[in-house]
């Protein structure tokens, strides 16, 4: 590839944008947001040039590394500052820069009333730069730099409106929970360095399985440990069980941030890490199984939480958790799932970004209200938002021929491949998840756009409804939504024809022979569609036909649990936070009493001895003379005794 040397610019351009905006300060307030858009768009153009170049390269030559120089050279550890350019990383580059640029454009209008808009764009650019570094790194260590950068940018953006305490707390929660996952990545790198002696992809992934580098044959147990640590890292970043609790609170950030976190950057990083580390998981079947189990559990967990949320953004957040669960499940299925995990990630990036931008548009119209129980009947007033969100809704439901159908259906199919209990458990979980997804997404759509108005344009409303004056968003917000909606409709179909996308990823994920699921494909497809229709119909009956109460009605214990995120915070507090606090408190107590007490006691004893000795120094010459005489007598006595 001739354009290989452009790879560093993909990271540098948005980074320069962020640095300029942050260093120029208030002086760039008037034009800063356009600079941010320009940096992101320029990155997209560079990515597009590289993509076109790669499309013209034979498949065998598509995996390449571009080394800029030596980064670390310390004893046995040698790490290059290198970029991995292959179909997988370029797919991410295109997703991140394209969706990212659209979100930048949308934010220009969405944040137009915010005095800190320039700082917001600086952070957005930083976010894009960190994510691109993450996907382009050619070693785990460089990936880790991007990984941390993504964590930093998400912290800054989730807590962007940090004037309110709960927003700052949400940012901190995301940051701290991500740190737990980061420890997994650090531990995985330590294990790699101890076992293989390197942390770059080529060496580590090359030393797994049959094509092992001589002398680096690690035991399956070591690979399992590395795999589980990588999974922990992915769980933190991708909000998978048991590190999922930060995602819902992260909705405290401005809506474009939510779109960016959920569609392009941040949560997709975990899936990328696991797919990139595919050979490690294949060398450790146990870890691979755990990945699939985590994915299946999270996809159901997120779906169940989504059914009970009245906050439009939190319902979408639960949906992301569930959809990422699908991707993790696919990544845990082995080589047959990798391509579909990335495929679903790509289509999900489009429709979830579209849905979030739509939610932002609805909030824009409804004075930043997020409670869907006070929406209703908005379709006629917000036609563009309703149509674009409707297309995204059909895509996430997996209705043919929209994008989601091509990717999610393939994951369900792949989940049914195998022997023994696994295909049944994973397959049925994926199938059930599709049904619940249809229910909660339809619930969200109908509650917002269909049914009776649960708000009023009158100030004095006799039914006690809130006063709102909904209006369609400006064009700068509409166009990104329209483009994403087009992507939600067409992208899946275009890439799925003739297995185009799977073939495109083959240089990285390897060629996989077709496997037959344990149930016929036509049956699975019908079952999925029937479940999706059932879910949507149920939501239609409950939220479009019947009246929706403006206050959440009393409900049974299961619904209450789902409203409280299945008590994830309670569990975290009981299992981790409280024991941790007790441990630190007892350590502080031990420090105060035993350690401090010992030293302070010693100091006190010396002081008291000094006070005692001080009494002999009374300043009277005659006392000193008497002391000297006494001393002389003592010396004489000693001499006399020694002499005799």
């Amino acid at each position: 590839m001739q354009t290989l040397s452009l790879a560093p610019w993909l990271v540098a351009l948005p980074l320069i944008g962020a640095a300029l905006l942050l260093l120029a300060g208030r002086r760039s307030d008037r034009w800063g947001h356009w600079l941010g858009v320009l940096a992101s768009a320029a990155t997209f153009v560079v990515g597009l040039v590289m993509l076109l170049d790669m499309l013209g390269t034979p498949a065998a030559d598509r995996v390449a590394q571009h080394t800029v120089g030596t980064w670390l050279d310390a004893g046995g550890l040698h790490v290059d500052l290198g970029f991995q350019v292959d179909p997988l990383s370029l797919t991410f580059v295109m997703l991140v820069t394209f969706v990212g640029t659209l979100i930048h454009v949308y934010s220009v209008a969405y944040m137009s009333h915010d005095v800190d808009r320039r700082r917001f764009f600086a952070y957005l650019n930083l976010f894009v730069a960190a994510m691109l570094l993450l996907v382009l790194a050619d070693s785990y260590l460089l990936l880790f730099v991007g990984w941390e950068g993504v964590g930093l940018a998400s912290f800054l953006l989730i807590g962007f409106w940090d004037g309110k305490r709960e927003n700052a707390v949400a940012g901190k929660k995301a940051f701290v929970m991500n740190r737990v996952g980061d420890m997994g990545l650090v531990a995985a790198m330590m294990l790699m360095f101890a076992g293989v002696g390197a942390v770059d992809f080529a060496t580590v992934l090359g030393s797994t399985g049959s094509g092992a580098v001589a002398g680096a044959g690690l035991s399956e147990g070591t690979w399992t440990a590395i795999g589980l640590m990588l999974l922990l890292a992915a769980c933190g970043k991708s909000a998978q069980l048991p590190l999922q609790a930060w995602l819902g609170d992260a909705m405290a950030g401005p809506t474009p941030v939510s779109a960016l976190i959920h569609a392009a950057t941040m949560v997709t990083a975990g899936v990328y890490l696991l797919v990139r580390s595919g050979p490690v998981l294949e060398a450790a079947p146990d870890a691979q199984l755990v990945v699939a189990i985590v994915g299946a559990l999270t996809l159901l967990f997120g779906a169940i939480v989504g059914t009970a949320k009245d906050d439009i953004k939190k319902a979408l957040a639960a949906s992301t958790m569930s959809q990422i669960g699908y991707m993790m499940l696919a990544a845990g299925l082995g080589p047959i799932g990798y391509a579909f995990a990335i495929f679903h990630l790509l289509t999900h990036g489009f429709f979830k970004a579209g849905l979030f931008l739509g939610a932002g548009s609805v909030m824009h119209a409804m004075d930043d209200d997020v409670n869907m129980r006070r929406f209703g009947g908005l379709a006629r007033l917000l036609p563009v938002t309703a149509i674009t969100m409707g297309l995204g809704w059909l895509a996430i439901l997996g209705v043919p021929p929209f994008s989601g159908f091509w990717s999610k259906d393939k994951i369900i199919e792949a989940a049914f491949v195998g022997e023994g209990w696994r295909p049944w458990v994973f397959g049925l979980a994926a199938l059930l998840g599709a049904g619940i997804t249809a229910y909660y997404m339809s619930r969200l759509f109908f509650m917002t756009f269909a049914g009776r108005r649960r708000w009023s344009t009158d100030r004095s409303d006799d039914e006690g409804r809130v006063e709102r004056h909904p209006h369609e968003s400006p064009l700068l917000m509409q166009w990104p939504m329209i483009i994403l909606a087009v992507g939600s409709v067409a992208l899946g179909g275009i890439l799925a024809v003739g297995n185009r996308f799977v073939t495109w990823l083959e240089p990285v994920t390897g060629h996989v022979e077709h496997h037959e699921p344990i149930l016929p494909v036509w049956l699975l497809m019908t079952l999925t569609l029937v479940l999706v229709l059932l879910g949507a119909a149920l939501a239609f009956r409950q939220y479009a036909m019947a009246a929706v109460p403006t206050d959440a009605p009393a409900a049974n214990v299961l619904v209450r649990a789902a409203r409280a995120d299945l008590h994830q915070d309670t569990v975290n507090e009981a299992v981790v936070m409280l024991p941790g606090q007790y441990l630190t408190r007892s350590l502080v107590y031990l420090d105060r009493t035993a350690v401090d007490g010992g030293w302070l006691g010693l100091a006190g004893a010396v002081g008291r001895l000094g006070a005692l000795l001080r009494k002999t120094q009374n300043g009277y010459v005659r006392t000193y003379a008497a002391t000297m005489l006494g001393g002389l007598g003592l010396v004489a006595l000693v001499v006399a005794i020694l002499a005799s």
Partner: protein
Amino acid sequence: MELTNYLGLAAVLFAVGAATVLLRRNAIVVFMGVELMLNATNLAFVTFARIHGDVTGQVLAFFVMVVAAAEVVVGLAIIVMIFRARRSASVDDVNLLQS
């Protein structure tokens, strides 16, 4: 006459000198006590020189006299200075080091 009587006299003189130093408050008198102790030592040195038939003791007595002369000069100067500054020659008044 027994030479040991001189030693007894030296001991008595030393004791008188030491008692003067410890018990009297006037700096001049204390100083006289010090001189008495020095001379008691000189007497003891000379006596021992006589007993052992060795001149080392006598030489040492001369040394003590020289040092005592120097000490008197310095000591008296200090006492005069303190008296000028504080209008008192009592050793108990010179206790500023206490606090």
